[in-house]
């Protein structure tokens, strides 16, 4: 029989990996993925304890965590895409303060008239 410590150790390792990724990587998308990893580790712990106690409430909490993780990811990725469409960077430390963003990152300024004149050429992003 596998003891609960096995699952706790797995949750701990996953959480540590996720925390290291969230703290050490600079890429915002990868930081989000690391946060997902941390939330999954928490779910492993909750469900293991739920099994240990013979209760269903741990699984209930894990479902709430999944719902919140989905909401958080959707919102964060929306912010990421919104920031990618305009000059200020959403990268945590990719660009120093006061430094111009790299050339490929500066979006073409789209005036409202040009947009109205040719809706087909609007940026999809």
């Amino acid at each position, binding site marked *: 029989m596998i003891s609960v410590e096995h699952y706790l150790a797995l949750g701990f390792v996953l959480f540590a990996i996720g925390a290291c990724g969230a703290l050490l990587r600079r890429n915002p998308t990868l930081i989000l993925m690391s946060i997902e990893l941390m939330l999954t580790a928490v779910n492993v712990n909750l469900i293991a304890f739920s099994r240990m106690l*013979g209760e269903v409430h741990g699984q209930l909490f894990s479902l709430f965590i999944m719902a919140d993780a989905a909401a958080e990811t959707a919102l964060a990725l929306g912010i990421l895409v919104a920031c990618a469409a305009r000059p200020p960077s959403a990268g945590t430390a990719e660009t120093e303060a006061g430094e111009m963003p790299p050339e490929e990152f500066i979006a073409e300024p789209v005036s409202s008239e040009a947009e109205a004149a040719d809706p087909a050429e609007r940026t999809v992003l």
Partner: protein
Amino acid sequence: MADHLLFDFFAAIAAASGLAMVTRRNLMHATILLLATLLATGGIFLQLQAEYALAAQVLLFAGGIVLLFVLVVMLLSPQFLRPAPFDWKSFSIAALALVVVIEIIAVVWAHHDGMIWRSAATPSANNARALGTALFQDDLLAFEFAAVPLLATIIGVVMLSKRRTE
């Protein structure tokens, strides 16, 4: 014995692909590795007799969130896709953290008294039914409160995309 083998299999996949995900430079590879981690964790859930959690994990995490990540990785400008430079100084800090993690696990292992599952806790024959009863009868208020952040997210995302088209 088979239990142990299964656990070791899923745990090894989850931990290894999680570690690979964090150290990957290519974002698309990292996304696929995240998918592997989430599916392996789903196997762990199944072993813990949480079938509904497995279903939610596969549908919501592996299906929904990873798809979202793939779409955003493909959408974003090259600035975000450019491989992030590896910072070896911070990875030495990570190595230190790893030592601490191993130490904590070793201490827990040395003091563990084999908390195995309570024998009285027989697995419920219908996990989804037990979960539904708890969710919609005992904890209905918590369920309703869980909907609030979802609503806030919908409003937030709509506002974000609306601002850009104006």
